[in-house]
Structure formats: structure tokens, C-alpha cells
């Protein structure tokens, strides 16, 4: 055929083109490194930063700017349920998760939870459906903490194969200590709020063997111990500190945020272990053995000069902005002017003359909000950004980039108050009160000492309670206290509460019945894609 040559020509052209184009197929993603980047010293160090501060605390598939990531969202949910703050926005049921079953005002009228469902127990179940996606508030803490565990597992996987220059043992020790510390932290958070959890030692994989919260707390302890062991295995304290110094963002390394030494890490671990015991039992069921265990750990816990694990903002918002911290979602010019509204019950914790109140709270035109969104979030108080200018008095909200030091895990004040609580509850009332006085002095409260004034056990407990409420606020741990003190139990109530009606009438002896679930069910997003294997612990709180 006469056109055969064209076909041959065409086939030849095609072959040439094919050969020429083959190189176009050889692409890889030119924008980001692959997981192989973790096989180098600098890679694993860089991942130790992002795996914790981004994967662990900032980025999830579901998000909502109204409550934000872990330090404002997940931590904020605890503060809402602890009545440190209130909310009327309904994103992820913010207004409902901390809405009491009833508030009885001084005139005898009772305002029930106006929402539907009208109890927090029912709300938790109604919220916890996979179909609710990011509106399910139970999803966040679980997912952030398993992100953190997954990132830590990846570090632990890689650390054994990476070849480090110089003092490899000390560098490895630092990375392992860092990874085990955050795993321990994550399991502490999981076991202190979820009814069951998973023990996961692999990166990018999971298992379906759910265990009880008690087992999760045990696992937290085991990882925290490994962190200490790893830290102590460092042959050079200098290299250990230098490695952590490369992991922790430089702008965090001010105040108490500089790298911990092995000894400081051990004290941080002891404080966290003390907290894990303290917050996972109700005070009523604490035995002398429990109190002594808390006291022993706290006595070996964080010192006033110890470095701890902190987070800060910067001007560019590289990791977090002030709005992504609970205090940054709370401060406002006008009462109720922010997403989170300072609770009347938090404002009432300050004793008369406490300079910290003068420094941090301002009474303005009351925020009265909508009566159909809640019964307790109305308030006269605004948290002041930067304080009112009293020198030497603690400031609880600072929006200026870098000014606010968020204590991510445990801190000196919390550790001291754990000591104080254990002492008071084991008959050493005055020793405990002396610690409270010291903390007040440290914060510039300007209050008269309570130790040596002959306070009764009940009075001492009240001093401790109100001081802890103030000092431990905005860090995602206040709900633990509300739970263990029995405040949230549906059968009990808080009396003597200051409360505002929707019309602005102030009650000073109101009774609030909270009725909040003590431990959450496992989030349905997990259960849908990872149903419990046979022999798993119950994933739903029977309450």
C-alpha cells in the first residue's frame, strides 16, 4: 500500500516522542519533603518540633475558628464545663456543654437548662454521632492527643535508625525523652476525660483493643517513666539541653520555657503523675494512701525555678495566635464581648481585697445574652487584656505577641497547690495554708495570710478550692477539679453561687445543679472507623 510509509513514519515519530516524554513522568512532590526526611538528624529534630506543636496541638481534619485548636478549643471545653467561662455560640455545642441543669436564684425561681436536649448527659450522647463531624465536641481532645501519640511513635520509630553526629547517645536520649514525655502527657489527658482509650505504639496504624481509663493512666505513667529513663541516659547534659533547645521554638525559650534538664523533667513527670492520681478520683473517695502518694510525688515535683513545658504566640502567628488560647478567646472590653465569657462563679472566687481581681477583672454593662441559649453564662465581668496596671500582680490575659506563657502541662503553682491539698487533707492544715499564702504572695494577691489563723478543715478546704480555681484557670484542667470535688454530679449542687438572671438581677446565694457527665464516651468518629475488638473495655460511660 502506498501509505505504508506514512504509518511507519508515524510509528517512528511516536516512539521518539514516547522516549522523549518518559522523563516527564519522573516527578515527585517538589513542595514538601517525604517521610524519608525523618531519617536524618536534622529531620527528626525538626519533626520533634512540628509533630508536637502542629500535629499534636494545632491541626485536625475538623476545625472551627470560633473555638480554635487544642489550647483554645479542647482546653476551653474543660473550662466551660468547670464554669470558669461561659458561651452562647452553639458551634460544637459550646453553649450547651457547660449549661447547668438548673439555676435557682435568690428569689426562689429556678431556670432550667433551656436547650434541647436539656441535660448535658443527653447532649453528650446526642453530640457523639459520627454524622456530627466537627460539631461533636468529644472528637477534639481524643484526636489531638492521638495525633500527638502518633507523632511521638514516629519519632521513636525513627530515632533508632537515624545516625546522629557527635554525642549520638545524648541526642537520642533527648528525642526519646521528648517523645515519651508527650506520649505520657497525651495518655494523661485521654485517661482523664475519656471512659476508655487505646494504647497505640505504632505510627500511621492503630488497633481495636480498647482499654479502661485506668489502664490508660497506667500507660501514661509508664511512658513518663520511660521519658525520665531516657533523659537520665544522656551522657552529656549539655548535648541533651542543646538538642531540646533545637526542638523547642526559640521564642518559647524564655520565662520557664527553656529546655528541661533530666532532673527537671523528672520533677515535671512527678507533678503530672501526682495530678493523674489526684484528678481521677473524687476527693470523697481519696484514701490516706492516695493523699500520701500525691504528696510524695508533689514533694518531688516542680520547683519554683524549674523549666516546664510552655507555649507562646509570636507576631506572625507561626504556631498560635492569642485567639488560639483560652485567655485570648475570653478577654474583652465589654462583659461577654468575646466567644468565651468570664463566669460570675469564677469572679466570685476572689476574696475581698484580692489585687488579682482588680488587676484582671472589670465590671461593665452586664452581658445578658439570650435566655434560650443557657441559664448561667450571663455576666457582669470582663477579663482585662494586659491587666489594669497594678505592678507585681499576676496578669491572666495578655494578647501582645509572646507575652503570655501558657503552661501546657503542669506548673509550679499547680504542684504547690497539690501539696497543699494533700497536707490539708492529711491533718496538716496549717502547712497546707502556708503554701496557699506563698502562692498568693507569688501572684501579688495582697491578701492577709490564712495560715496560723486557726481555720477549720472546711475553711481550709475552701481556701484551697478558691485558690486552685483562680490559679489553675484557662489551662484545660479546671474541669478535673469540678469533677473530683463532686460539683458536677447531678445529685449535688453548688450553693452560695453568684448568678445573674437574663434580666440582670444579681443573686449572691444561688444554687446551681450542673449535672455533667464525668468521663466522656469514646468519640463516634473513632468507633465508626475502628470498632472495638472482642474483649475490649466498654467504650461508653454507663452513667
Amino acid at each position, binding site marked *: 500500500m502506498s*501509505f505504508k510509509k*506514512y*504509518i511507519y513514519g*508515524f510509528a517512528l515519530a*511516536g516512539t521518539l516522542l*514516547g522516549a522523549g*516524554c*518518559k522523563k*516527564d*513522568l*519522573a*516527578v515527585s*512532590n517538589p513542595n*514538601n*519533603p*517525604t517521610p524519608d526526611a525523618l531519617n536524618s538528624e536534622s529531620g527528626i529534630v*525538626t519533626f520533634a*518540633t*512540628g*509533630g508536637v506543636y502542629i*500535629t499534636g496541638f494545632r*491541626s*485536625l*481534619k*475538623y476545625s472551627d475558628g470560633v473555638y480554635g485548636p487544642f489550647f483554645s478549643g479542647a482546653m476551653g471545653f474543660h473550662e466551660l464545663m468547670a464554669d470558669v467561662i461561659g458561651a452562647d*455560640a*452553639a458551634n460544637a455545642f459550646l453553649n*450547651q456543654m457547660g449549661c447547668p441543669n438548673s439555676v435557682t436564684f435568690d428569689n426562689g425561681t429556678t431556670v432550667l437548662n433551656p436547650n*434541647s436536649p436539656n441535660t448535658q448527659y443527653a447532649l453528650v450522647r*446526642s*453530640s457523639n454521632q459520627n*454524622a456530627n*463531624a466537627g460539631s461533636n465536641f468529644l*472528637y477534639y481532645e481524643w484526636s489531638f492527643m*492521638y*495525633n500527638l*501519640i*502518633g*507523632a511521638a511513635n*514516629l519519632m521513636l520509630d525513627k530515632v533508632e535508625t537515624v545516625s546522629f553526629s557527635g554525642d549520638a547517645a545524648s541526642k537520642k536520649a533527648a528525642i526519646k525523652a521528648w517523645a515519651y514525655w508527650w506520649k505520657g502527657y497525651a495518655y494523661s489527658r485521654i485517661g482523664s476525660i475519656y471512659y476508655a482509650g487505646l494504647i*497505640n505504639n505504632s505510627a*500511621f*496504624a492503630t488497633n481495636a483493643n480498647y482499654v479502661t481509663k485506668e489502664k490508660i493512666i497506667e500507660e501514661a505513667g509508664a511512658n513518663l517513666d520511660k521519658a525520665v529513663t531516657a533523659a537520665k541516659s544522656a551522657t552529656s547534659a549539655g548535648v541533651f539541653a542543646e538538642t531540646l533547645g533545637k526542638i523547642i*521554638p*526559640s521564642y518559647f525559650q524564655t520565662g520557664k520555657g527553656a529546655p528541661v534538664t533530666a532532673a527537671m523533667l523528672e520533677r515535671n513527670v512527678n507533678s503530672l503523675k501526682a495530678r493523674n492520681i489526684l484528678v481521677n478520683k473524687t476527693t470523697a473517695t481519696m484514701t490516706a494512701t492516695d493523699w500520701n502518694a500525691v504528696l510524695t510525688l508533689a514533694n518531688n515535683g516542680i520547683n519554683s525555678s524549674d523549666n516546664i513545658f510552655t507555649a507562646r*504566640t*509570636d507576631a506572625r*502567628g*507561626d504556631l498560635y*495566635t492569642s*485567639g488560639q488560647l483560652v485567655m485570648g478567646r475570653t478577654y*474583652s472590653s*465589654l462583659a461577654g464581648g*468575646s466567644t468565651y465569657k468570664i463566669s460570675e462563679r469564677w469572679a466570685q472566687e476572689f476574696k475581698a481585697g484580692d489585687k488579682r481581681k482588680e488587676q484582671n477583672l472589670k465590671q461593665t454593662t452586664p452581658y445578658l445574652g439570650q435566655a*434560650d*441559649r443557657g441559664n448561667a453564662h450571663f455576666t457582669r465581668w470582663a477579663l482585662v487584656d494586659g491587666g489594669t496596671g497594678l505592678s507585681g500582680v499576676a496578669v491572666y490575659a495578655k494578647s501582645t505577641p509572646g507575652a503570655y506563657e501558657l503552661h501546657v502541662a503542669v506548673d509550679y503553682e499547680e504542684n504547690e497547690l497539690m501539696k497543699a491539698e494533700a497536707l490539708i487533707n492529711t491533718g496538716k492544715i496549717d502547712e497546707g495554708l502556708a503554701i496557699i499564702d506563698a502562692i498568693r504572695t507569688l501572684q501579688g494577691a495582697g491578701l492577709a495570710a490564712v495560715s496560723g489563723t486557726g481555720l477549720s478543715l472546711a475553711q481550709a478546704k475552701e481556701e484551697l478550692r478558691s485558690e486552685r480555681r483562680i490559679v489553675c484557670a484557662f489551662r484545660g484542667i479546671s474541669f478535673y477539679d469540678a469533677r473530683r470535688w463532686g460539683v458536677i454530679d447531678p445529685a449535688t449542687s453548688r450553693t452560695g453561687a453568684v448568678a445573674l438572671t437574663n434580666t440582670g438581677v444579681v443573686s449572691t446565694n444561688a444554687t446551681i445543679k450542673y449535672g455533667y457527665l464525668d468521663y466522656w464516651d469514646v468519640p463516634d*468518629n*473513632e468507633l*465508626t*472507623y475502628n470498632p472495638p475488638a472482642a474483649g475490649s473495655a466498654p467504650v461508653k460511660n454507663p452513667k
Partner: protein
Amino acid sequence: MLWYDHYKMFFKKANSFNNSININGAKEKMDFAFILSDSRQQTVFKNNGDFSRTNLTANIGVELAKGLKFRSITQIVRTNDTQLDPTGRNMFYAINNARPFANFEQRDAKGMYSPYFGDAVGVNHYNFNFITENAKVKDLTIDVLQSFNLNYRVNRFVELDAKYGINRSSYNSRYEIVDQTANEGAEFWQYWAEFYSPRTSFGSPTTGSESGEINERNFVNTFQNFTANATIKLDFEKDLKLKIPLKSATLVGWDYRKRETTDFWSYGVNSPDFTPYRAVNMAEYKIATDATTQFATYGVLVNQHFDWGELAGASAGFRSDYSSAFGQGSKPFTFPRGDLYIRPSSLGIWQNAKFSNVLNEWKIRAAYGEAGIQPGAYDRFPILGTATVGSQTALSTPTSNANPDLQVEVAKELEIGTDFGLTIGKNKWFSNASIAFTYWARTSENVIDRVDVAPSIGIGRQLTNSMTLKSNGVQASLNLNVFRSKDWNWDFTANFSKQKSWVDKVLNDAQLIKLSSAGSTSYIIKAGDKIGQIYGYIFPTAVNQLDPNGVPYIDPAAQKDYTVASNGYVVNKTTRQPFASAKQYALGDPNPKFNMAFINSVSYKGIVTFGMQWDWVSGSKLYNQTKEWMYRDGIHADYAIPVNIDGQTEAWSSFYRGAYAVRQANGTKSYFMEDASFWRLRNISVGVDFTKIFTLKGFTKLQLVLSGRNLITKTKYTGMDPEVSSGTSNSAWDRAVDNNTIPNIKSYQVGLNIGF
């Protein structure tokens, strides 16, 4: 108290101008056409910016030698857009959620607008005047499209064709927010333009960027396509002198495509105290994105076509492509196709039959094809996230992982159809008609989606070949010449289409979540459900109503507390709130049962032309999220509608507030899922060509056209427009939500077409 009409305050009538000059000609072995067109559009929002596009096209063809033709088409398009809110949704949301006593035009003592007027105006309102005053945007897009085509008809058997095209689109966006620290309203409410402006800014207001911000984005997309085809035609009767009416056409082709993009975003925050200033004067700056992608695919296609006279034809072929998404060394993906047709009306027996006077054409056709849909350029390459942290860098695990095992998505489509040609009337009326009918069925296997994984894995989602989707439908059309005479011509067309699309299989039979870009409504993907199925809480209409599993929505013991209100919903007798189911259920298929269009066109002597099109969409559903938001603070007019509950008639705000709040504030509820069927006068136009009336020297055409779009709509939908979708554009999943989307506008056009 003064009441303000916020629509009047923020909306205006907008004008658009379209002009075009067309010069073309041909001379011996060359032809050319030059077109210059210009379009200027204002938006219906005051101070929201405007839009203009200028387009220059040059099309030149040259015959280089006998049978060898060369053509070059060049197009340059410049698009200038200063709209702060191109969709208008943010602005619409801001004003729909404001009570009418707020005067958004009020300025403070310093002459500034306040961004917010307090919760009493409605917590979701904000003053868009504040936004337009503090934020400015300029988007400039330059598109250059060039194609060359060389066509060589070697002889009557062989034709060679080579085509190369390159499209380069460069987009530059500069978005500036001015210093708002001096604005007392902004400072007091801590409301910054960055929060509420519809554009993406990178600096966060809480980090000091309320004192000014400049964002700049440069995006360049280059697409190259080279195709080379050889067509070999053979007529067995003519060329081979065989006594069979067989014709053959063979196509062998080569197709190469390459796409490259670069994307660069930078921003500076915290402006200096002096003016004017540029980004370089900002106290903090950062590169937010620097990304590039390359994707190439190439392969061969072969198609063999046979025709047997006019009676039948069939073709079969395949295409086989390599893709860079699978890397070097991967195998090509090969997909077949084929079609065939039979025209019984071409048989002598038909043509001799009596009925052929009326039914003069009948064709049956069928086609089948498979195609591969490639994953995205880097969907198979797992990566780590990167970030700058102060002076350090950070790597992190991404929230959504790539998947090295990802396979090509395969689409299979079968189409069967038939066409009829009819001669009905012998006279001027109904002289001829054609009817076409098509049935189609499509299957998509290995559909790639970012699907949820268990959070304990430490990531959020993973790209997965996760489902099989199916759809089928029918399309029918009727073209009828209603009347034809020397002066008059009237044509009528009716189109009908119906389709259903559903999820056939889901990996591990899981329930997948699909978020809507239209707000809080989310879709659920479950085997057996329709595509685009919205889930939500059911409002029962009978106290003892059962759910799809036969369980009563309301616990029988509690049913005594409920009654049916006069508007048909079950309400609590005490709280007067409607009852919402505890769980979420499918809220009915949002897709229309069918779509129809009726088109008439009439002309008289070529002087007057008249056209009219009515569209009918039946059985569609739309989730009225706009209304639900307006229920939040009692802003919607429904609050004034009385309802009889348990013997008492009143405009119970507890009912309406409850509709928004029960079970989940702003949760998705059957109450807001509405019938969105409609009839719409899509288009009506009248044209008069004056050159056909008078002799106008030098003009070949002088036509004045008056037309209107969307002038009449009949619907039961209570929102502004039953035809809107606020979801992801072109998404099959995300299209049944109306969340403050600007309705299709009624428009009137005046056009003048001049020909020389």
C-alpha cells in the same frame, strides 16, 4: 425607632456594557479574523468593586502548499476584578442577619464606620461598609492562549494533523487591609476587617495585623497539549473496486499533555505610621505558600471506524496513557471504547413503505466507553507538612495523607439512543419534526476521595479509592417546526431529562462524611444513598410517627406531652418547641425528578425575531440555610406567622426559635429542607434588524435586540431563589444548600449588532 431597608442600603441596580469589533476576510490562500471585545460589569453591591474583561483574538489560516494548511489562533485576555466579595455570600449573610434598626451608614465622631453594632442587632451581623472601607482587592488575570495547527491532506487516503497549544494563565492578587487601630468600634468589639472580609488574609488580627496588612498572590498555570493524528480513509467500493458499500476510517493518534503551576503567596503585617507604604515597610512579613506542581500524561489512541453504506456503522478503539501521577516505570492505563448505529430507514424496503412519508428517518445508536481519571499530580506521594516557627522550621504529619497505593478511577459509560425524523403536516403547519431519545448509564469505580480514618491512627483522612458510584438517566428532545411560510418561521423545542445517581458501594461499608462548603450542613456517603444526600434531624408530623427502622421518634411514654401544631409539626405542649429526632436521618433526595425546557423562536422576514425559553425543574429539594440562620435571632419574617398549639393561637417565637435550636443550634433539620421545584422564564428576547426595513448604506446589519433573563419564577420555595447552590461549584455532592447565596439576578439587555 427608625427602620432601615438594608437591601436598599447595600444593593443598587448594576449596569454592564459589552462591546465587540469583528474584522474578518479571506484572500486566495489565506484567511483571517480579528476580534476585539470588551466587557465591563458593575456588581449589584455598592462599593464592592467591579469586573472587566478585554479579549483580543487573531485567527490566521494559510495554505502553504497543496493540501498543507497552517493555522494559528492567538488569544489574549485581560481580566481585572476588584470585587471584594465576588460571590456576595459574606455580605448577604452579614445583612440578612441584622435587625433593621441598625444604621450601617452611620459614622462615628472620627468619621469612621463601626464593624459591629452589638448583639442586639443579631450576633451574626456585621457592617459591610466597614469592610469595604478597610479592605481593597485587585485581581488581575492575563491569559495567553496560542495554538498552531498543521494539517496535511497527503492524498485521498491519508490526512495528517498536528496540533500544539499552550495556555498560560497568570493571576496576580493584591489584597490590602488598612490600619484599623484608630477605629474605636473595631478596637472595642475586637472586630477586624480580616475576620469578616470574604478574602483570605494570612496575618491573624490577634497578632497585630489589625494595624495593616498586605497580601499578594501570584499564580501561574501553564498547560501544553500536543496531538498528532493520522487518519487513513478507505472506500472499498471506490478505491478497491469491490462491490461492497464499505468505508473504513482509521485514526491513530498521539496525545501529550503537561500542566505546570506555580503559586506564591506572601504577606506583610503591621504597617508603618507613615503613608503611603508598601509591603516592604511592614514590620513582619512571611511567605505563606510557595508551591509548584507538574503533571504530564501522554499516550496513543487508535480508533477503527466502518460504515456500511448509510445503513450501519461501527467503531472500536482504545487509548493507552502514561501518567506522571504514577511515576516513571509505571505501566500505561488502557481503556476501550466502541459505538455502533443502524439506520433501518435507509433500507429500500423502508423507503418503499407507505409510512416512510411520515416516518422518514429512524436511527438506533449505542456507544460504550471507559476512561481513567488520574489521581492529582502528587496524590500518590506521601509527604510531611512544613512550617516556619520563629527562626526554626518544623515538619509535621499532614491532616490528610497521600496514598502510594492509589489507583486510577475508572468511569464506564453506556449510551443507547434512537432518533426519528417525521414529516407531519403537508402545509405550513407542523411540516417536520425530529425526536431523539437517549438512555445512559454510568459507573465510576475506585472513586478517589479524602476519607476519614480512625483518629487514633494519628492522621485525619487519607486519599482512598473508596467507592463505586452509579447513575443513569434518560434524555429526550422534540424539535418541531410549528409554522413556516414565506415571511414567518416558528420553531419549537422541548427538552426533557431525568437522572438518578447513587452510591453503590463504599469501602468497608463505612459511613463517610462529606463536608459542605456551604456552612454547617454535612453530607453522608453511605451505600444505597443518593449522591448529595443531606442528613439531619427529622421533625415528625404525627406524635406516634415511626422512624425508618420502625421505632417511634418520640418515646411512647412521653408522647402525651406532644401535639401536632396547626402548621403540621409535632410540638411540645409546654415549651411549644418543635420535636426533633434524636438521631440524624436522610432528608430525602435533593436531586430533581426531571428537568424540562421549552423554547420557542419566531421570526418575521428576518426583520423581527422573537425568542422565549421556559425551564421547569420538578421535585428538587434545597436546604434553606439562609432561613435557618435568620431564625437564630428572630430576624426572619416567619416569626410573625401565628401557629395554633394545643388550642392557643399566637405567633409563638418559641416554635420558631426552637426550629433553629432544638437538638442542635443551627443543626440540619427536615424543617428547612424545602421543595425547590420551579418554573422560570429563562429568557425572552425581541430583535429588529433595521437594514431589513430601510436601505442603510454601508451596513449589512443593524440589529437592536431587547432581552430579559429570569423575569418570572413560579416556585413554592420560600427562599429567594430555588435555583441557587452555595456548595462547592460543580460538585455532585455539594449542591443542595442555599446559604446566603445571591439569587440569580433578573436582567435586561439592550444589544446593538452592527455589520459592515
